[in-house]
C-alpha cells in the first residue's frame, strides 16, 4: 500500500485524502445539506427559514456538490495509487451507474406518486398541474429523453448534475493528484468560458437547457476535489487567517443584508442602483460568482470554526444528520420523493403553518430512520463478508 505513494510529494502535514480515519465534518455537513434540500423543496415552507438560502446568495446545492468533489477524491485516490487507474475508473463508473439507476428509479417513483395521488383523490388536474411536461402528451419521446437525462421534471436535476460530474472525474483524477493547482486553474477557466459563451447542455422539451449547468457547476466540485489534495497546505495562510476571516464575515454580512432586503422593502431602498446593477441577476444555472464566493467564505469560516475532531460532531442529538450524510445517495432520493409528498399534503391543508411544521419534522424523521436502517444493513453485510 505504501509503494504507490512515493511520487506524491509528502509535506510534514498529511494531505486530507491520505489522512487515516473518517472526517466527520463531511458526513455532518453533507447530511445538513440534505436536510436543507428537503426543507427547501417544500414550497413556501416556513421551516426553510432554518436553511442557508435565506441568509445569503448560496444554498445547500453548493454544499452538496463541494462535498461530493471532496469525498470523490478521498474515496478513489488511494485506490488509484494502490491499484492503478483502469480499475479505479471502472469503480467510479460503477458508482456512476448506481447514481444513474437511482435517478431513473426516483423518476419512476416520483411520477408514480403523482399518478397515484391523482387517481386516489380523483383529481386528474394534479397530473396536469405537476405536469412532467410532455410526459402525458408524448410519453415515448419523454421516456427516451429521461433515459438521456435531458428530461428532468421539477426537483430532479441535482442527480443528473452529479452523474455528469462523476462521469468526467476519472479523467481528471490523475492530474488532480499530480498538479492540483493546474487543475483548479483549468476548472476556473472552463467555468469562466462557459459563462462568457453561454454554453450549456441541451434539455427537453427542445429549447430547454440544464437548470444546473454541469460545465459551470464543475468549479464547485473541483474546488472540493482540489482541497482534498492540498487542504493541509492552507495552513500557510493561517498567519493571516483572521484577515481572511474578517473579509469572509464582511462578505457574508453584505450578502445577508442583500438577502434580507428581498423581504423588507425599507432595506431594499437603501441599496444604491450602481450596486444593484453589479450584483443582479444572481444566476443559479451558471452559478454566479457571487454565489460561489459566498460559499467559499462560509467554507473558510467553517474550516476555522469546526476542526475535524470538534466535539459537537459526536453529539447524539446530531447523529441523525451525520447518518443521513453517510448515505447521501439514498437519503437524497428519499428526500426528493418525500418533498413531493409534503408538497401535496401542505397544499391539501391550504398551506397551514401546522402542516408545514409537521411535514418538515416527519420528513426529516423518515430520512433519519432510513439512514439508520442503511447503516445497519451496511454493518451487517460487512460483518458477514469478513
Amino acid at each position, binding site marked *: 500500500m505504501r509503494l504507490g505513494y512515493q511520487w506524491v510529494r509528502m509535506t510534514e502535514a498529511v494531505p486530507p485524502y491520505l489522512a487515516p480515519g473518517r472526517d466527520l465534518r463531511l458526513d455532518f455537513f453533507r447530511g445538513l445539506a440534505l436536510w436543507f434540500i428537503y426543507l427547501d423543496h417544500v*414550497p413556501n415552507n*416556513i*421551516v426553510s*427559514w*432554518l436553511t442557508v*438560502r435565506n441568509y445569503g*446568495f448560496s444554498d445547500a446545492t453548493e454544499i452538496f456538490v463541494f462535498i461530493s468533489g471532496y469525498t470523490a477524491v478521498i474515496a478513489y485516490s488511494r485506490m488509484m495509487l494502490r491499484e492503478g487507474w483502469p480499475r479505479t475508473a471502472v469503480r467510479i463508473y460503477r458508482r456512476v451507474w448506481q447514481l444513474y439507476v437511482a435517478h431513473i428509479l426516483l423518476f419512476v417513483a416520483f411520477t408514480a406518486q403523482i399518478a397515484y395521488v391523482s387517481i386516489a383523490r380523483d383529481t386528474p388536474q394534479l397530473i*396536469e*398541474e*405537476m*405536469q412532467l*411536461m410532455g410526459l402525458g402528451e408524448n410519453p415515448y419521446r419523454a421516456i427516451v429523453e429521461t433515459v438521456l437525462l435531458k428530461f428532468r421534471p*421539477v*426537483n430532479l436535476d441535482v442527480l443528473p448534475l452529479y452523474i455528469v460530474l462523476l462521469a468526467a472525474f476519472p479523467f481528471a483524477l490523475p492530474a488532480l493528484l499530480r498538479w492540483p493547482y493546474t487543475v483548479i486553474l483549468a476548472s476556473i477557466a472552463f467555468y469562466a468560458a462557459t459563462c462568457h459563451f*453561454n454554453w450549456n447542455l441541451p434539455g427537453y422539451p427542445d*429549447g*430547454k*437547457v440544464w437548470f444546473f449547468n454541469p460545465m459551470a457547476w464543475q468549479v464547485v466540485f473541483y474546488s472540493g476535489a482540489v482541497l482534498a489534495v492540498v487542504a493541509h497546505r492552507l495552513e500557510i495562510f493561517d498567519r493571516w487567517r483572521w484577515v481572511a476571516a474578517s473579509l469572509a464575515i464582511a462578505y457574508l454580512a453584505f450578502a445577508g443584508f442583500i*438577502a434580507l*432586503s*428581498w*423581504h*423588507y*422593502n425599507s432595506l*431594499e431602498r437603501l441599496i444604491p*442602483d*450602481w450596486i*444593484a*446593477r453589479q*450584483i*443582479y*441577476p*444572481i*444566476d*443559479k444555472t451558471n452559478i*454566479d460568482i457571487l454565489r460561489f464566493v459566498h460559499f467559499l467564505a462560509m467554507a473558510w469560516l467553517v474550516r476555522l470554526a469546526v476542526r475535524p475532531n470538534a466535539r*459537537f460532531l459526536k*453529539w447524539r*442529538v*446530531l447523529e441523525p444528520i451525520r447518518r443521513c450524510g453517510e448515505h447521501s445517495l439514498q437519503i437524497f432520493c428519499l428526500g426528493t420523493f418525500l418533498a413531493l409528498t409534503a408538497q401535496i399534503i401542505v397544499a391539501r391543508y391550504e398551506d397551514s*403553518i401546522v402542516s408545514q411544521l409537521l411535514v418538515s419534522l416527519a420528513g426529516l424523521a423518515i430520512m433519519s430512520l432510513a439512514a439508520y436502517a442503511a447503516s445497519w444493513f451496511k454493518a451487517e453485510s460487512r460483518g458477514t463478508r469478513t
Partner: protein
Amino acid sequence: MSRRIFAASFAMVALWSAAAGAERQCRASRNLLELNNPLEIARAAVAEERQLRIVAMGSSSTQGYGASNPKYSYPAQLQIKLEAAMPGVDVHVYNKGVGGQDAPEMVDRMRADVKPEHAHLVVWQVGTNSAIRRDPLTRFAEKLRSGIDIGRSLGANFVMMNLQYVPAVVALPDEEDYARVMAEVAREKGAGLFRRFEIMRSWYNDGMPYAQFVTNDGLHLNDFGQKCIGKLLSMSILEAIRPRRLTGAPNTPH
C-alpha cells in the same frame, strides 16, 4: 445544551416567519389592467367560433424559468383562468418562450411560431433582455414593429407585455425608456399593452417584498409572480373582449 440551541433556533424561526409571512394578495388597480385595445379578432373568435387560440411569445418569463412547476408559468395560468371564465369556449395557449432571447431573435421565429397555431392573439413578452443587453432603442422599436407586422399579416391581434419590475431590471439606468418605447410602438401599431412593469411596481410600492414575487436571482418571477401575472393578464384580456361588463370579477362565469 444542544437541545436548547435547537429549541432556540426553532423559536427564532417561528418569530421570524410570523414577521415576514404577512402575505399580500395578487391584485392591481383597474386602470393598470386596461389594454387600450379592443382585440377584435380575439373577440370575434370567442363570439363566433367559440374558441380562442393564443400564442405566448417571449423569453424565460414565458418559458416559466423560476416557477417550481411549468403549470405555474403565466401562459399556463392564463389558459386555466380563461377556460374557467368562459365555459364552452375552447381556449389554447401555446407557450413559445425561449430563455435569453429578445426582440431580434423573436422576430426571426415569429412566423414559424405563430402560423401553425392559427393564433387569434399573440401575447408578446419582450423588452427585458434588450434592456439588460442595452440594445439601442431605435433598433428595439424597429424590431417590435416588424414583429407585430408579421403577426398581424397572419391574422392575429397583439398584446405587448412589457418588462418585469425586479431588482435586476430596476437597477438599469434606462429600463423605463424601453417600457416607453413599447408603449409608443403599441399605440402606433394598434396593439394592446399589458403593463407588467407598472403593475409589479404597484405591488412593490404597496409594500409587497421582492421575496414574494421574485426568485432569489433578482430577475425571474417565482410561483406567486407567475401565477399572479397569469391571473391579471386573463382579467385584462377578458375585460378587453367583453367591454360591456362594468365591474371586475371576470372569473364569474356568465
